[in-house]
C-alpha cells in the first residue's frame, strides 16, 4: 500500500502550538465525563457545600423575615406620647387626663391609655403585714398608674382576676393589678382569697394578675394601680405618657395628628415616639443571622473544595500517561494546566448549579412546612455557580500545576 504524504518546504519560523478554546473545553468536559461516577461524587461535595450556603442564607432571610414580620407588626402599631420638659419659667407641658378619649376618636386608633410612673418614695411593696426575719417580704417594685384602656393598648393578657375599670379610677379605689414577675416575687398566685398588698403604709386589694404584656415590658415587674388613686394618694399631677395601639399602617399619620388632638394649644410641647424604621431593624437582625450562617456555609464549601482538590490530584496521578500523550501531540504545559483547571472549575460550576437548586428547595420546603414565606435573595443562587467555579479553580490550581510540570518523557514512560 502506498500512502501519499504531502511535504512541506523547510521553514525557519516555527509556528507555536495552539488550541482553540472550544477544543480545550471539549477536552476538559470529555476528561470529566470519562469517570462519571467519580465526577458525580466530587460534584456532590461542592454541591452540598453550596446547597448549605444557599439554604442557610435563604433560611436566615426567611426566618429573619418571619421574626421581623412579627416584630414589625407589633412595633409598627405602637405610638407613645410624652410631654417634653418645659423651658425654665414656662408652665409644664402636661398630657391631659382625658387624652385616651380624645385620641380614640382619631381614625386608625385601636386603643389608647395613659401610663405613669408613680413616685412612692422609698416605700416598699409587701404582700403581708407579718414581718418574717427569716425571709424577705418587702420588695422595691415599680408602681405604675394606668387608665383602664392602657391594658388593651399594651396587649396585656390577664392570668387571673380582673382589670380595673373606669369606676375604680373615678372612685379612687385601692385596687391593684400585679405584673407576672411582681406577683411571683410577692408570692401571690391567685386572687380568689382577696390578697392584699401594701405599698409603704397604703394597702391595696389585688384584683388581678397579668399573664403577659406585649408592650411596655416593665409592667411585668410592676404594681399597676388606677389613675384615680394615684392622683389622690401620690398626687400624680398629669399622665406621664399615652400609649396608643394603631391599626397597621396608621402609625405614621397618627404620629402627626396625635399631638394636636392631645394639646391643640401646644402640640409642639409633646414628644411622639414612633416605631423604628423596620428596614433598619431588619437589616440588623439579618446581618447577625447572615454572619452565623455564612460561617457554616463557608466551612461546608471548604470541605467541598478539599474534595475537588483531592479528586483532581488523584486524577492527575492516574492520567500521567494521558498527559504524556497530549504533550507528544503538541500540548504545551499551559494547555495541560488549563485542561485540569477547567475540569475542576466545571465540577465547581456544576456543584454550584445543583447546590443552588438543592439549597432553594430546602428553603422552600422548610418555609412551606413552617407556613412561612420563603425569602431568597436572587443574587445568591445566581452567584452560587460563580462561587463554585472559583472554588473549583482554587482547588484545581495545585493539581493543574503538578500536571503541567510533568516532563513528557516521564509521563509517557508511565503508560496509558
Amino acid at each position, binding site marked *: 500500500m502506498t500512502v*501519499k504524504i504531502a511535504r*512541506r518546504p523547510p521553514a525557519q519560523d516555527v509556528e507555536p502550538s495552539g488550541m482553540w478554546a472550544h477544543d480545550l473545553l471539549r477536552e476538559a468536559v470529555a476528561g470529566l465525563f470519562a469517570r462519571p461516577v467519580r465526577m458525580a461524587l466530587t460534584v456532590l461535595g461542592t454541591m452540598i457545600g453550596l446547597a448549605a450556603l444557599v439554604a442557610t442564607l435563604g433560611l436566615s432571610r426567611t426566618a429573619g423575615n418571619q421574626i421581623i414580620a412579627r416584630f414589625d407588626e407589633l412595633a409598627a402599631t405602637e405610638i407613645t406620647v410624652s410631654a417634653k420638659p418645659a423651658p425654665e419659667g414656662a408652665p409644664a407641658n402636661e398630657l391631659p387626663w382625658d387624652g385616651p378619649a380624645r385620641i380614640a376618636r382619631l381614625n386608625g386608633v385601636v386603643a389608647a391609655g395613659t401610663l405613669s410612673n408613680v413616685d412612692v418614695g422609698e416605700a416598699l411593696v409587701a404582700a403581708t403585714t407579718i414581718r418574717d426575719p427569716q425571709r424577705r417580704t418587702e420588695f422595691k417594685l415599680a408602681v405604675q398608674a394606668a387608665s383602664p384602656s392602657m391594658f388593651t393598648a399594651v396587649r396585656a393578657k390577664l392570668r387571673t382576676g380582673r382589670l380595673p375599670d373606669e369606676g375604680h379610677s373615678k372612685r379612687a379605689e385601692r385596687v391593684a393589678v400585679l405584673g407576672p414577675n411582681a406577683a411571683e416575687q410577692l408570692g401571690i398566685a391567685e386572687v380568689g382569697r382577696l390578697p392584699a398588698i401594701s405599698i409603704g403604709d397604703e394597702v391595696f386589694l389585688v384584683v388581678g394578675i397579668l399573664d403577659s404584656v406585649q408592650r411596655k415590658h416593665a409592667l411585668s415587674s410592676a404594681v399597676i394601680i388606677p389613675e384615680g388613686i394615684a392622683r389622690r394618694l401620690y398626687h400624680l399631677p398629669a399622665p406621664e405618657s399615652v400609649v396608643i395601639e394603631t391599626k397597621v399602617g396608621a402609625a405614621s399619620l397618627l404620629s402627626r395628628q396625635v399631638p394636636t388632638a392631645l394639646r391643640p394649644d401646644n402640640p409642639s410641647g409633646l414628644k411622639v415616639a414612633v416605631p423604628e424604621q423596620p428596614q433598619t431593624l431588619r437589616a440588623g437582625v439579618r446581618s447577625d443571622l447572615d454572619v452565623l450562617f455564612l460561617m457554616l456555609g463557608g466551612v461546608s464549601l471548604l470541605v467541598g473544595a478539599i474534595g475537588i482538590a483531592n479528586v483532581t490530584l488523584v486524577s492527575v496521578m492516574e492520567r500521567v500517561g494521558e498527559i504524556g500523550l497530549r504533550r507528544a501531540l503538541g500540548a504545551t504545559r499551559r494547555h495541560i494546566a488549563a485542561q485540569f483547571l477547567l475540569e475542576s472549575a466545571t465540577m465547581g460550576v456544576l456543584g454550584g448549579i445543583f447546590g443552588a437548586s438543592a439549597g432553594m428547595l430546602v428553603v422552600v420546603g422548610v418555609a412551606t412546612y413552617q407556613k412561612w414565606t420563603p425569602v431568597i435573595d436572587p443574587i445568591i443562587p445566581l452567584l452560587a455557580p460563580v462561587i463554585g467555579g472559583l472554588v473549583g479553580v482554587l482547588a484545581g490550581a495545585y493539581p493543574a500545576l503538578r500536571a503541567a510540570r510533568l516532563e513528557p518523557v516521564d509521563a509517557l514512560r508511565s503508560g*496509558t
Partner: protein
Amino acid sequence: MAEAAAHTAPIPMIRLAGIGRRYGTVAPVVALRGIDLEVRAGEWVAVVGASGSGKTTLLNIVGCLDRQSGGTYWFDGIDVAALSDRQRAGLRSRRIGFIFQSFHLLAHRTVLENVMLAEAYARQPRAGRADRARAALAAVDLDSRTDFLPTRLSGGERQRVAIARALLNGPDLLLCDEPTGNLDSVTTDSILELLDGLHRGGLTIITITHDAGVAVRAERQVRLADGQIVGAR
C-alpha cells in the same frame, strides 16, 4: 544557481551533531554520548540496540520531547535548541507523528475521537475534522471501527488507530517506538506493510526496535550500544 545547489545538497530532515544526554548532576547517568546522525527526507531509518542502549532517549530528543545535554540538533535545518517550549510543541503537533509500543489511546474516547485529538493541539479548523479523521482511519483500513472504543479493538487495530492519529496532521517525520513490540507476528507484518506504504509515499520514518525482523524493513540501520552509535548499514 542557488536552486541547483539546493537540489544537489538538500538539507537533511534530521541532523544530530555530537548529541549527548546526561541525567542527574551529582552522579550523572550518561544515556547518550557524541551521537552524529543524519536522516534525509523520505528515508526510513531503524535504530537498533539492546535495552538501555539509549534508543528511546535518542527518539525523545529527535521528537522534541526531551532536550539534549550537549551537541546540536537541527530539524529540517532549524536549530531545535533555539526554539521555545511552545515552538517545540508546535513542531510535535504539526510536523512530527508518534507511534508508541503501548499505543497510548484514550480508553474512554472512541476511535474517531482518538484520531481527532491530534488536530486539537495543531489549531486546525473544527469544520471537517471528523471527515479528515475518517479519511486517516480509512487509510489504515479502520473506517469501519470509528465509533468503537479502543478496548474493543485488537492490538493491531489499536496500533493502526495510533498510526492514523500520527498521520492526521500530515507530518514530515514519523517516530515509531517499538511499534510492533506488543503485537503477534501476523499483525506485525501488517503494521510493517503499512509503514512501508507510508515510506514509499515519501514519509520520513525513524523506528527504534530490538527486533531484527522489523529493522530489516528500513532502508538503513543504526546500532546503538551504551549510548553511542557502534555501527550502521
